[in-house]
């Protein structure tokens, strides 16, 4: 499963991504709002890069509470493609960028060599089952209702500090360390090896267990 990072992919996910820009920019100044003008919407200059809709999946119920995925939506208003170069967070030892791919009939998670990219003038929405920012080596449990702050640095040098709420999300595909609803085929040992078998190595492949069924 490749990431949603091109215009073609945007169309594939239908209204979900298509209407994204409305909430952030267009509609604020174009429609009636609370019955009066929307000063903050109409005076906000177009930023080259915006990061919105950030959220982190809780470690509650997670089979491997040492890691948690961060999902964001990145809008690139520049004329050049962008990628996330690096990230850091006070709650994690390190921040990595992962993709989900099919290998030998299994959905596996692996560090994304090309990084998470956003085409020029495009929007990339990270969501479960696709590219994600992985907070690795968590120093604390991430409870639902808490907030996590992550600093991201883009390839053009832009830095964005993102405050993301921690949310519950039961992932039927169990792409990460699994949840209470994970299929029986996903064993503790596979997730255990996932977190200890060199996640920091950019070339290693983490097998998540044979849970490709929806």
């Amino acid at each position, binding site marked *: 499963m490749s990431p949603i990072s091109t*215009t073609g992919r945007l*169309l594939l996910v*239908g*209204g*979900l*991504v*298509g*209407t*994204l*820009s*409305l*909430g*952030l*920019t*267009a*509609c*604020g*100044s*174009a*429609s*009636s*709002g*609370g*019955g*009066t*003008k*929307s*000063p*903050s*919407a109409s005076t*906000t200059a177009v930023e080259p890069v915006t990061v*919105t*809709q*950030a*959220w982190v*999946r809780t470690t509650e119920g997670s089979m491997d509470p040492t890691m948690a995925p961060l*999902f964001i939506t990145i809008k690139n208003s520049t004329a050049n493609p962008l990628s996330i170069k690096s990230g850091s967070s006070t709650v994690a030892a390190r921040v990595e960028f992962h993709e989900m791919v099919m290998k030998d009939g299994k959905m596996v998670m692996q560090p994304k060599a090309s990084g998470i990219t956003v085409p020029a*003038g495009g*929007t990339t929405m990270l969501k479960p089952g696709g590219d994600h920012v992985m907070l690795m080596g968590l120093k604390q449990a991430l*409870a*639902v*209702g*808490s*907030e996590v702050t992550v600093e991201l640095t883009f390839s053009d040098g832009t830095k964005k500090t993102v*405050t993301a*709420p921690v*949310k*519950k*999300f*039961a992932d039927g595909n169990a792409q990460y360390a699994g949840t209470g609803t994970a299929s029986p085929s996903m064993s503790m040992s596979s997730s255990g090896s996932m977190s200890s078998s060199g996640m920091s190595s950019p070339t290693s492949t983490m097998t998540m267990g044979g849970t490709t069924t929806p």
Partner: protein
Amino acid sequence: MSPTRRQALTAVASGAVAAGAAAALAGCSSSDWVRPGPADSSGKAGAVGSARVSPFGVHQAGIATPAPARVMVTAFTLRPGADKAALGRLMRLWSEDVKALTQGTPATGDPAWELVGQPSSLTITVGFGPAVFALEGLRDKAPAGLVTIPPMVHDKLQDRWSGGDLVVQVCADDSLVISHVTRRMVVDAAPFATVRWQQSGFWRASGVGTPGETGRNLMGQVDGTGNLPVSDPQFASVVWSSGSPEWLQGGSMMVVRRIQMALDTWDLLPRDKQEAVIGRRLDTGAPLTLAKERDPLPLDARGADGKPVIPDDAHARLANPNSNGGLRILRRAANYDAGLAADGTPDAGLLFISFQADIAKQFVPIQQRLDGSDSLNKWTTALGSAVFAVPPGFGPDTWIGKGLLA
């Protein structure tokens, strides 16, 4: 039922404009995924669903914006330990949900995102109950006018419909949207608050009735004639908070009351008596003896029998600003129908919602006057009552309640 269908149609039109603008911004000339709004306001298929209302502005949407077909109001109780900081996290979370959902985009972590693509004029309005101002760090921020409504003689208040530390009012033209959006808000609130009560109400469905008409309640009355239009110069001072406290400026105060109607006995009242109870005609909503709904109430006029044509105990007289030192509120009351009680009695009536700058100075004196002598009291009983301070609006880079909680 204030904001009129004419205003609703305007919102549909502006929603269409917004959708077009967004398509242009996203660089998509052919936009299968943004259902285009109507070229006119004739109500063609899809126009109702694709209509969007911006959540941004000086005021929260859902107060002065037109009332669509349905409303769901959910009140919450803060969990023990939920403090000022936690409330801030919840407001940031909810604000992101409001930004996304009102524009037809899923809330983050929403596993059923197909349910949100047709926002149907969705608005989400958030308010704080009195208990918020008992939290550490917020005790000196309480609005003086945020008072619990004193018990009225005719009230039969039940805990299950009363009070609340937080409120979320969700309005839209589609029940599926209302239900799913309310659920997202409830799920995201779960770490911070539990649901205390939930009440739904309805107006006429979109496309029913004539543009600009005032709604009707289940007694058959034209209901809401007295509301000021948003364009009225007085509207702002009636609805929006100004002055103190500073954080509430541009906000409002919300009253929610569940008012059960004794429909079985009301039905037995002859029509002329029904009209005398209100002081208005049932067919047109016009004041008795007059022709048009908007004609001023002839409060001093007397009939051939020497009696006032609008009886002294008529609801319209007692609720009229001229009888209340000019006091007004903005009514956004909806109908509710919870089916029949075990004994076959209808549990139906008015999900009374009003917005006003100050509950103590506006709502309470009007209600006390009605409680004293309104002849309508014989057929109406308040079963629930709740009050909330509604923070001002927000923008793309801020969040609801930031002025109080940041």
